[in-house]
C-alpha cells in the first residue's frame, strides 16, 4: 500500500512555481553582471561595472538613506504601536476591543497607494496640518512637509503600524498573567511590573514586529516615491527610475541584489542582537 498518497500530485505544482521563482531570481542575478546597451532591453557582455558604480556617492547615499529611513520608521512604529497593542489585548470592554482591532487592522488591507495619497493631503502646503497650524496661529506661513524625509517617515509609520500591532498583540496575548499577579502580590507597582515582567516577556513580538517593519519599509515604493517626490531617494525609487526612465535594467538588477542582501543582513543582525533577550523571555 502507498504510505504517502498524493505525494507527487501535491508537490509537483508547488515545485513548478518554485522553479519559476528561482529562474526569476537567477534572471536578476544574471542581468546584474551584464553590460547595458542604451535604449535596449537586450544586454551585452559580462561585467562587474554595475556593482563598482554603486560605490559612487549618489548610490551609496541612497543605500544609507534607505537604511536610516527604515530604522527610524521601525522605531517610531514600535513606540506608537505598543500602547495600542497593549490596550487591544488588555481592555475588558469588547466594544473597545473590536473598535481598536478594526481601526488598527483596516489600513493593512487598504494598500500602499490609498494610504500614501491620504498622507499627501495631510502633509501638503495647503493640506490639513498646515491649515490647522496656521488657523491656530502656531505658524505664520506653511511649513514644507511634503518632499521631506520626515514626511516620508510619518507616512511609512502609518503604513507599518497594523502589522506591528498584530505582532505585538499576538505576543502580549500569549503572556501568562499569573507572572504579573505574582509580582503585584509581592508589592511591585504597575510601572515596575510592566518594565520587569510584561516588556521582557513581549520581546519575541517586539523583535518580530521590528524586523517586519524594517523589511516592509525597505520594500516600500509608493510612499517614498510620492511623498518624497524625487527629493528623497531610496533603493526602491532608484530601481524604478533606472528601469523605467533609462531602461538600464542591468544596473537596476544589481541595485536590487545589493538591496536584497542588505535587507536580509539587517534582519538577521536584529534577530541575533535580540536572541539573548528572547532567551531571557523564554526562561522567565
Amino acid at each position, binding site marked *: 500500500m502507498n504510505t*504517502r*498518497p*498524493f*505525494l507527487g500530485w*501535491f*508537490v509537483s*505544482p*508547488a*515545485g513548478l*512555481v*518554485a522553479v*519559476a*521563482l528561482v529562474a*526569476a*531570481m537567477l*534572471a*536578476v542575478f544574471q*542581468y546584474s553582471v551584464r553590460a547595458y546597451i542604451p535604449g535596449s532591453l537586450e544586454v551585452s557582455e559580462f561585467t562587474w561595472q554595475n556593482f563598482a558604480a554603486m560605490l559612487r556617492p549618489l548610490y551609496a547615499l541612497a543605500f544609507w538613506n534607505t537604511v536610516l529611513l527604515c530604522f527610524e520608521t521601525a522605531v517610531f512604529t514600535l513606540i506608537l*504601536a505598543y*500602547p*495600542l497593542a497593549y*490596550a*487591544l*489585548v488588555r481592555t475588558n470592554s469588547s466594544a473597545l476591543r473590536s473598535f481598536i482591532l478594526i*481601526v488598527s487592522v*483596516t*489600513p493593512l488591507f*487598504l*494598500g*500602499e*497607494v*490609498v*494610504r500614501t*495619497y491620504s*498622507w*499627501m*493631503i495631510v502633509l*501638503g502646503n*495647503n*493640506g*490639513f496640518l498646515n491649515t490647522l497650524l496656521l488657523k491656530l496661529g502656531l505658524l505664520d506661513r506653511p511649513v514644507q512637509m511634503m518632499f521631506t524625509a520626515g514626511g516620508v517617515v510619518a507616512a511609512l509609520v502609518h503604513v507599518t503600524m497594523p502589522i506591528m500591532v*498584530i505582532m505585538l*498583540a*499576538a505576543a502580549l*496575548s500569549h503572556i501568562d498573567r499569573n507572572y504579573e499577579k505574582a509580582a503585584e502580590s509581592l508589592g511591585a*507597582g504597575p510601572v515596575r511590573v510592566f518594565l520587569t515582567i510584561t516588556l521582557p516577556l513581549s520581546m519575541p513580538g517586539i523583535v518580530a514586529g521590528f524586523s517586519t517593519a524594517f523589511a516592509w519599509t*525597505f*520594500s*516600500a*515604493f*509608493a510612499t517614498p516615491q*510620492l511623498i518624497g517626490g524625487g527629493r528623497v531617494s531610496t533603493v*526602491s525609487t532608484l*530601481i524604478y527610475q533606472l528601469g523605467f526612465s533609462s531602461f538600464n*535594467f542591468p544596473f537596476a*538588477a544589481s541595485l*536590487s541584489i545589493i*538591496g*536584497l542582501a542588505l535587507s*536580509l543582513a539587517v534582519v538577521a543582525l536584529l534577530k541575533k542582537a535580540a536572541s539573548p533577550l528572547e532567551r531571557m523571555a523564554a526562561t522567565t
Partner: protein
Amino acid sequence: MKRSPGALLLRWSGRILVAAVLLFVLLPGIVVAISAFNDRAILVFPPQSWSLRWFWRAFSYPDFAKGFWNGLTVTVWASSIALVVGSAFAFAIHRYKFALRNLLEGILLSPLIIPHYTIGLGVLILASQTNVGRGLPLVIFAHVVMVLPFVMRSTYISLENLDIRLELAASSLGATPLRILFTVTIPLLIPGLLSGWLFAAILSFNEFTATLFVSSHATQTLPVAMYNYVREFADPTLAALSVIYIVVTATLLTIANSFLGLGKILNVDAH
C-alpha cells in the same frame, strides 16, 4: 479596590496615549473623506464648497473601471491557484518527508522577505528572456508567488489543529485515501482554506510594487491605475475612490469580525 492617585494618573495617561495613537491612525482617513466632497479641482483643506462630482468621476474614469476588472481577474485567479497549489503543498510538508522538502519550503516562503520590486523585476526580466508577453497571466504568476506563503501558513495551521483520528477512523472503515481526502480532510479544513483564500485575495487586490513592474497599460490593476492618476492629476477623484475603498474594506472587516472573529484569525486573542 482603592486606587492611589499615582495609579489613577497612570491609568488616565495610558488612555490619553491610546486615544492619541488611534487619532494618528484615523486622521488620514478622516482628512481624505472630507477632501473627497470638495467642489474645487485642487486639493485645499478645508473645502470651501461641496460636491459629489468626484465620486462620479471615480466611477466613470475608464482606467479605474478597467483597473478594477483587471484587478478582480488577477485576484480571483491568483488566490485560487495559490489556494490549490499552496494547500496541497502544505498538506505534503505536514504529513510526509520527501526529497528537497525543506529547500522547496524555503524557496516558496522566501517572497515574505524578498522586496516586491525584486520579484517584479525578476519576473519582468524572465518574461522578456523567454518571450512571454506582458499579459494578465504574467501578472497572475507574480501574484501567485507573493500570496503563496500566506495560504501555505493558514492551511498548515489548520492541519495542526485537525484531529488525525477522524482520518484513521475513516480508513479503518475501508475508505480509500481519495475518499478520505474529499469527505474528511478537506471538509474539516474549509475554515482555514477560506480564510487563507480571503487573505490572499485582499493582498493580491492591493498589491502595487511588483504589479507596477510586470503590468502594462492594458493589464494594469486598480492600485497601479490610481498611482498613475495621482502622478497626472491633482483633483480629489482619488480622494473619492479612497473613501469608497475605506468604507468597503472596513465594512468587510466588521462583518468578518462579527462572523469569524478577526482576533482568532490574526491570533491576537488572549488565552
